[in-house]
């Protein structure tokens, strides 16, 4: 996905700068327009200001957790098209089920393969495009 026909936007939300930088690089390399947020509160502001196509969201963050961000996005009908991919160190099946119940569209456990992230983001962005059109 190196062609830049439609510049989809991805919001990377994580309080760890290393992974934020890596994900930003990875997504930009895949042709997405990338923005970043370092905690839950900033993420909600960014999403409301300009809804991205896909949010890469950590769960355990200061101020507001990833679950709270999910709940905030899903309670706003204007943000229906936003797809959320949770990237979390919590690997229990219960955590995945909880994220899904809170409104996440996908879940990857850290450490993850970059190929898996690219694949998931691609499918979520495609969904967003179909339903947004």
């Amino acid at each position, binding site marked *: 996905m190196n062609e830049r026909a439609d510049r989809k936007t991805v919001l990377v939300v994580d309080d760890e700068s290393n992974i934020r930088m890596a994900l930003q690089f990875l997504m930009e390399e895949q042709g997405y327009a990338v923005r970043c947020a370092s905690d839950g509160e900033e993420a909600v502001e960014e999403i409301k200001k300009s809804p991205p196509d896909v949010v890469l969201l950590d769960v355990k963050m200061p101020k*507001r*957790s990833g*679950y*709270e961000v*999910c*709940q905030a996005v899903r309670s706003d009908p204007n943000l229906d098209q936003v797809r959320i991919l949770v990237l979390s160190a919590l*690997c*229990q*099946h*219960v*955590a995945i*089920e*909880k994220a899904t*119940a*809170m409104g996440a569209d996908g879940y990857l*456990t850290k*450490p*993850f*393969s970059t190929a898996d992230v690219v694949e998931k983001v691609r499918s979520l962005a495609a969904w967003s495009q179909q339903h947004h059109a």
Partner: protein
Amino acid sequence: MHERWSLRARFAMFFALIAAAVPLVIGIALWLAATRMEDNPVPPLVLFGGAASFALIGIIAWVAQLFDTHVARPIVTVSRDLQTLMHANPEHEIHENEARYLGVLGPTVRQASEAMRQLRSDIDAKVEEATRSLERQRQRLETVLRDLNEGVVVCNLDHQVLLYNQRALQALYFGGDLGLGRSIFTVVNRPPFLNTLERLRNRFTSGRYKNHPDHLMAPIVFATPDGRYVLQGKMSLIVDEREKEPQSYTLTFSDATKQIASLATRDRLLHDALEEFRRPLANLRATAELLNQSSKMPEDTRKEFARITAEESKELSNRLTSLTEDYHSIATSLWPMSDVNSANLLSCLARRYRDHPVLRCDVSGEPRYLHCDSNTIIELMDRLIRGILEESGAQTYTLEASKGDKRRYLDITWSGDPIPASTLDSWLNEQIENGAGNMTGYDVLEHHRSDAWSERVEDGRSRLRIPMPDPVTEHTKQQSGAPPIRLEFYDFDLLPRLGDSGDLATRRLRDLTYVVFDTETTGLEPSNGDEMISIAGVRIVNGRVLTGESFDKLIDPGRTIPKASTLVHGISDEMVAGQPPVQDVLPRFRDYIGESVLVAHNAAFDLRFIELKEKQTGVKLDNPVLDTVLLSAIVHDHTDQHTLDAVAERFSIEIPEETRHTALGDSLATAHVFLKMVDLLEANGITTLAEALAASEKLVQIRRRQAEY
């Protein structure tokens, strides 16, 4: 030999002697008369003498018959009545009508029996009064033992079980059949017991126990014979204060199988983590440091190191994922949890709000088993419900244990919006009131490997959902694998060691252990294809029928059951469908009876069915057998009514209509009949097993000879 003749036979013998004397006396008298007479008087004398002899013999036979009917038989009947009354059935009525020709004997016996009955009644009343308070104490002790969370078993020094509680039965049920008077080694492996007992006995003999911190107690870890279940607990030696020597030992224990397995898995996981992470981490660190530090690295080498870095990172990730999955798959945490019925758990919670001014909770849905620590879960849910009331104002809540595709949940549902994740987060970070220690809600959830969230459901309602671990054991409405609730679980009369009592045949009947059994069948002809469809047994130990230790199994006969037969025992084709076949049931029955003496009513019939299946099942019963039909004919020889109903009626034993002609019901009735018979057999001088078997055998031979005529 003469003592062995019955009264009636002896009377008959007397009359026979008189009858034999008649022709002799008349013959001699006429011969003497003939020698003194001149003519030839022989023909008329022989004629008249012979006629007189026959007439007299006829009269004597008639009188003997009358004597037997009016005197001998009534005496025997009254004697048997007295025996039954004294030894077996105090309510038994004397057949006074039978004794109507015995003059004052009949009324006198009746008066004597009434006086005895009154005396016995007075004694019974006093005994009852004296034992009532003892009984209350006993019941308290039984309740405590039954409800103890630990298994308790008391054994004598021959390792025979004197007492066990319900928990012990549950824990050891899968090892074998735990029962009073049985060896503990039928359900546990032997070495740990012998070793620990020897240590304790040495400690006692040497007197070291007086200063020992554990006195006469030692920790013990043991397993079921197949090694599947590991149990840990303590063994204590019980010393009889009077005899100043050990008499028995107590074992208290709990099932440690899961804890030990979990600990072993955790140890292995930790070991694997330490060993398996070392290599990829070493490679990763080396290549990363070289990439970072070496500025003059050739491009090819840099690319190779970058490839190694990516490869080792992936390897590390894979191992971490696998380790985490293994860790979470360990079934239980070390936090004490048990399988709990959701109906009990949620009702207990709902009852808290009965007096609440506004809050109402209803329990809904099908009850399900959950594996949890019910106390902390109830406290957590209580905190959450009160939080939701404050947050949303909803006053009515539905509590339900639901089952999704993957797991079970505890759901609290109300009309209104979901709880914000941040609010729920703050509740779960609070300490739980009345919980053990200073646990937060998240701690409770962590013990259950769980989490909680709030989400919207249909009809403007929301729920708070808590995933719950599945039960450890499979619970069904009729749990066929579960041990039954037992009513008798101790017998300290077994304390004297039975092993010292010598050979089985010479032991007293009342000291033996019996299994009284019965079968139900498709018909009466085992040789013509009739099959067993049910077999049941009850144990008699120390003169007590242990109804709680019964064996009761339906058998799939592999053929249809005739309707006429179903009408008798109530067992239909549908009832036996899916039941185990005879080759599964009979080996279990053999294990159940062990070394016991077998007792059955018309035993030959039931044994024939078992015998015909010997090739198929490998079960050959060599145990001594007593038949209550034969024993009844011995103790009640004045009648030929020996059906189970007739015998039970003579002993005033009631057989409930609903259990009559069921294998277990008939076994129980036969067991009670047999105990009464043991008393009467003793009154007839038959006290040992050998004597009872000999008397039965003699009767069989007499009947066989009678049948030849």
